[in-house]
């Protein structure tokens, strides 16, 4: 006799097994329809291999396992697939899930199948694969795929076969053991072979199944398999409990029996393995007990998977009115079914249709008096009364300290509770809550980590920015202090004074300190050197690519200019090195101021003379550069640049020569020698021009300027994008802003009562040459188009009232003025020779506009006069 151990706790509910143990294993008529859920097991649902309309044969695989923990599904009989859709499935929640529906054709035609001749000649892995393909899962209750359980990583020394069936009412395993003991023993032998012949093989049976014990003992004779009988007590059939009873060992909390070198399989599963290996038959049916007082007949049946439970019940004279609870499984751990249409699945060991006498409605729970009966009944040695207390208060920490997750939900505690508290329900809910909470906690932790990392990054960037800002601010403060010391008292709010002050400030800012100044110069040299290098690279690149001579010439010019600039920068740096120690900051600022003053107040002649002088200087330095340069290409480029300078010089000298007596007059409209003073002058001119404009004109002018800026911004953005520069996004957003502004302006213009501007962009519109006297307006557009447009305009004008005409003319004049001004601006910026011509044209246009506007306001109001 083998030593057996006792488990703590446990209960002895009425067995109620005799009712269904009368007739052996019966059969059930073929149902009209089989419903086969894709997930009858623990793990991932199987993937259908058939589609509606397919004819399948009995035993044919209709859904394959997906992933490691999954199980195949086979057609329980031959027939036609009717559909794959959501159907109610046996589940405590009463939920629906994907099911394959099979309409049997009544022929019960098998597919090709055959068993393995000698399984001992097969490697365990091949047998495991066969078990996996046969769709075998644990038939005891959990439905865990057997191939996974039979292939543990640890070496196995004990195989335990569970024939306990400790739940009341259920006799499926009992009847199987009684009727098919030799097959079960053969199945055990197969499992032994797969597990590498463990030393100990035990079949555990409770002593309330004497016939099954006898049959198995007889069949196991000489095989080395020990059939062990032990006292009946619920829940001895739990895997952990059976292992404890038979081996005295406890499966460590949260671990699998394989850690102890033990594998446990149910007798039903063992029989299914025998079927799969020796007969080649996959798992398509199982033994199910149908019992309960609401059934006129109780018994065990070999039922095809997918058989609707209603069909099974109808076969057993089910009285629906007498039934208060329809339970799948036993009275201790089974779950209630709401819909008898759900099918029998792989784990359906019992259908219990209980009457009111068997399952009276639960009375309201009374207060827990902590009597401790539950703790005495608990097979896991928990304190159910404390778990209940903490489950009620949702004290998750205490629940885990009291080992809630070691609860096997056997129901012994709730069975004995004199206050009828549904304890297991509380534990299930608490477990669910804790799992959900843990999952959320995990998610929150991840999110927090991400956020903290992000924040740290932003803070770092911000700190860097702040450091830069601080450095700039300090520099500006230092500059201001120096300006304050050097600044002469302001003579008045005159515009020239303002400009001088501004120039002084700029100069002061620039010359914050000799060191900074020097650094700046050095940077400038560096930058120019880089530019030169880039220009040369581009030139070389262009040569390699065989660009045409024009393009090459341009590139050469660029190289030339870059070389010049570098030279200048180097000279500046050199001269700074010479002079800086002696030269005070205030002197520098004063120099800048006097230069501006000179420019602002210079007469036309003086300005031209300055231009000539500066050009001569540039030419001289260019010639010098040519002399110093050895590369042919660079020399050519320098020479072309030199040519340009010479042309300019010639023009300036001509202008100087042709200057009339008014040339000595002091002017505020400066001709330009460098971009800075030009910008000052332009700003002034604009301000003056704007002062005389109507709001509409101003808007239009703004629009025009905007267009230019947009064009420039677009170019920049494109270039940035082409280079994949990091500024591309910034530039694009700036562009968008500009465009938005433009739209706003157009709208504002459109809102003006008298719409004069057509939708055409300003840049396209052309001055109308027809109505008034011709004047020299530089016109780049093709002549024909201009003539056509002019004719069209003339026709329009002919159909207009004088006032309308005036208005149109005014509008077109405005456009022309704007255009002329923009041309002048660009000419000024480029230092073009057309500056004067353009200026003259602009003045004329403005004069004309003034006179037209005068006429308009003098003219009779057409409406008033009518």
């Amino acid at each position, binding site marked *: 006799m083998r030593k057996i151990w006792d488990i*703590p706790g446990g209960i002895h509910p*009425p067995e109620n097994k005799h009712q269904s143990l009368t007739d052996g294993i019966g059969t059930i008529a073929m149902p009209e329809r089989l419903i086969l859920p894709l997930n009858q097991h623990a793990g991932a649902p199987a993937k259908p291999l058939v589609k509606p309309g397919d004819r399948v044969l009995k035993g044919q695989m209709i859904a394959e396992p997906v992933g490691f923990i999954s199980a195949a599904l086979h057609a329980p009989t031959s027939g036609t697939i009717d559909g794959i859709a959501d159907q109610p499935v046996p589940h405590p929640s009463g939920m629906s899930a994907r099911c394959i529906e099979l309409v049997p054709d009544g022929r019960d035609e098998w597919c090709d199948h055959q068993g393995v001749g000698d399984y001992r000649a097969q490697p365990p892995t091949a047998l495991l694969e066969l078990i996996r393909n046969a769709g075998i899962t644990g038939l005891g209750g959990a439905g865990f795929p057997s191939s996974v359980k039979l292939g543990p990583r640890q070496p196995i020394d004990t195989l335990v076969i569970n024939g306990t069936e400790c739940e*009341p009412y259920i006799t499926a395993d009992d009847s199987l053991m009684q009727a098919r003991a030799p097959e079960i023993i053969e199945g055990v032998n197969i499992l032994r072979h797969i597990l590498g012949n463990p030393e100990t093989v035990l079949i555990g049976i409770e002593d309330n199944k004497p016939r099954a014990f006898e049959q198995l003992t007889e069949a196991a004779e000489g095989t080395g398999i020990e059939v062990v009988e032990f006292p009946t007590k619920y829940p001895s059939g739990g895997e*952990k409990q059976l292992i*404890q009873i038979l081996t005295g060992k*406890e*499966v*460590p*909390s*949260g*671990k699998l029996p394989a850690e102890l070198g033990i594998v446990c399989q149910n007798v039903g599963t063992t029989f299914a393995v025998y079927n799969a290996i020796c007969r080649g038959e996959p798992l398509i049916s199982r033994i199910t007990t149908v019992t309960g007082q609401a059934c006129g007949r109780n018994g065990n049946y070999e039922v095809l998977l997918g058989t609707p439970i209603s069909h099974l019940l109808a076969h057993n004279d089910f009285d629906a009115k007498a*039934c208060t*609870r329809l*339970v799948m*499984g036993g*009275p*201790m*751990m*089974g*779950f*209630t*079914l*709401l819909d*008898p249409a759900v099918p029998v699945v792989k784990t359906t060991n019992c259908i219990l249709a*209980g009457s009111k006498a*068997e*399952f009276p*409605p639960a009375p309201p729970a*009374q*207060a827990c*008096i*902590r*009597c*401790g*009966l539950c*703790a*005495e009944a608990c*097979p*896991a*040695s928990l*304190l159910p009364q*404390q778990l209940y207390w903490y489950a009620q208060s949702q004290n998750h*920490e*205490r629940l*885990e*300290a009291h*080992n809630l997750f*070691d609860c096997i939900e056997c*129901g*012994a505690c*709730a*069975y*004995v509770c*004199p*206050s*009828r508290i*549904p304890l*297991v*329900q509380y534990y*299930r809910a608490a477990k669910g809550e804790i799992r959900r909470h843990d999952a959320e906690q995990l998610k929150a932790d991840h999110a927090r980590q991400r956020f903290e990392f992000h924040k740290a990054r932003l803070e770092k960037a911000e700190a860097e920015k702040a450091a830069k800002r601080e450095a700039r601010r300090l520099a500006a403060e230092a500059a201001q202090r120096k300006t304050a010391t050097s600044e002469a008292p302001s003579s008045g709010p005159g515009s020239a004074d303002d400009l001088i002050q501004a120039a002084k400030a700029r100069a002061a800012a620039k010359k914050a300190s000799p060191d900074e100044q020097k650094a700046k110069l050095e940077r400038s040299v560096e930058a120019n050197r880089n530019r030169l290098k880039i220009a040369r690279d581009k030139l070389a690149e262009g040569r390699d690519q065989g660009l045409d001579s024009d393009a090459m010439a341009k590139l050469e010019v660029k190289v030339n200019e870059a070389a010049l600039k570098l030279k200048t920068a180097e000279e500046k740096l050199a001269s700074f090195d010479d002079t800086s120690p002696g030269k005070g900051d205030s002197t520098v600022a004063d120099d800048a101021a006097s230069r501006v003053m000179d420019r602002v107040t210079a007469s036309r002649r003086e300005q031209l003379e300055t231009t000539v002088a500066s050009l001569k200087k540039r030419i001289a330095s260019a010639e010098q550069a040519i002399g110093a340069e050895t590369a042919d290409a660079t020399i050519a480029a320098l020479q072309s640049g030199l040519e340009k300078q010479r042309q300019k010089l010639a023009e300036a000298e001509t202008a100087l020569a042709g200057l009339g007596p008014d040339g000595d007059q002091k002017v505020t409209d400066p001709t330009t020698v460098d971009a800075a003073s030009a910008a000052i002058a332009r700003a002034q001119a604009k301000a003056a021009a704007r002062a005389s404009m109507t709001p509409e004109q101003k808007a239009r002018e703004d629009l025009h300027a905007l267009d230019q800026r947009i064009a420039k911004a677009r170019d920049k953005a494109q270039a940035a994008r082409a280079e994949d520069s990091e500024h591309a996004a910034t530039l694009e957003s700036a562009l968008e802003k500009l465009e938005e502004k433009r739209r706003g302006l157009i709208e504002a213009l459109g809102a003006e009562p008298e719409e004069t501007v057509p939708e055409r962009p300003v840049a396209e519109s052309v001055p109308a040459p027809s109505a008034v006297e011709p004047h020299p307006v530089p016109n780049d557009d093709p002549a024909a188009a201009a003539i056509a447009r002019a004719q069209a305009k003339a026709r329009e004008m002919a159909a207009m009232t004088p006032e309308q005409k005036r208005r149109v003319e005014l509008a077109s004049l405005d456009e022309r003025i704007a255009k002329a001004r923009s041309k002048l601006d660009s000419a000024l910026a480029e230092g073009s020779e057309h500056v004067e011509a353009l200026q003259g044209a602009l003045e004329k246009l403005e004069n004309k506009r003034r006179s037209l506007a005068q006429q308009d306001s003098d003219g009779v109001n057409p409406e008033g006069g009518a």
Partner: protein
Amino acid sequence: MVFARASSPHEHSALSTRQVMQYVLLATLPGLVALTWNFGWGTVINILLASTVAVGTEAAIVALRKRPVLFYLQDCSALVTAVLLGLALPPLAPWWLTVIGTLFAIGIAKHLYGGLGFNPFNPAMVGYVVLLISFPVPMTTWITPRDLLPAGVHLPDLWQSLQIVFPILGAPGQAVDAITGATPLDAFKHHTGLLVEQIYAAEPLFSRAEIVSYGWEWVNLGFLAGGVWLIYKKVFTWHAPVAMLLGLTLMAALFYDGGSSTSGGSPIMHLLSGATMLGAFFIVTDPVTSATSARGRLVYGASIGILVYIIRVWGNYPDAVAFAVLLMNFAAPLIDNYTLPRTYGHSKARKATEKKP
């Protein structure tokens, strides 16, 4: 077809809380009979009066709390409190003593904490201690056992007893003083200068006893019988009562110095005197206020046994079950924290306040 949706298990054992309480009530009968035989009708009157007040108080409070009155009354827990208090009070105690004790036990000690299952202290013992501290004289006036009464003096009959308890019914034929006397524990407290042997010889309580002390031995044996039956009926486990008796025995044996004048008395005297057995099987076993696990109940019971001896021998009160029980009620949550059972699959027991591993 509408089937119930219910969580497993679907079956249930027959035992209910009401039945548990009824078993307890039934188990007090042998002790009650012994008390009534030796000390007259007083205890029965106590019990009936306390039960009436308890059920009335419970009903009133449950109604005040807007709960279903009958549902709560049917658990019989108020009756158990009343019966235990009635058994503990001196026979022929004035009616107001019983009424006050019961009101306090049910109203304050039980329902103020949330009713059955939520009270941290044993309600009967709270009621008893309140009376003992507030009204020490009537609470320590005990009746002389039937056969030790002086010649010509008899225990009052039922009507006389009622008259003594309820003076409004008229003057009883005899004064209560004539029939009062010391209990065995009183005797030990009062004769501190004597050797144990001398006390035994001087006091008829001991000299005429079958085992230890006249009358009291039978009362205690009666409660012991009831308690053993309750263990047999699995109403509670043996842990707490056995631990308490062992604790008391151990202390008495340790400090029994052969019967000197400072001796606290023999273990058997302590086991069969006063409220030892009533306490061990009916008070210490109150599940609501005791420790939870079997291990915890061993600690809890043993601690009460030790405390009972300490207070009896070195304290001011002759008996000590009520104080010892209340003190350990305080300690029960602490005991619970350290006495969790070792769960299946764990190498050792954990603490209730342990954090995640």
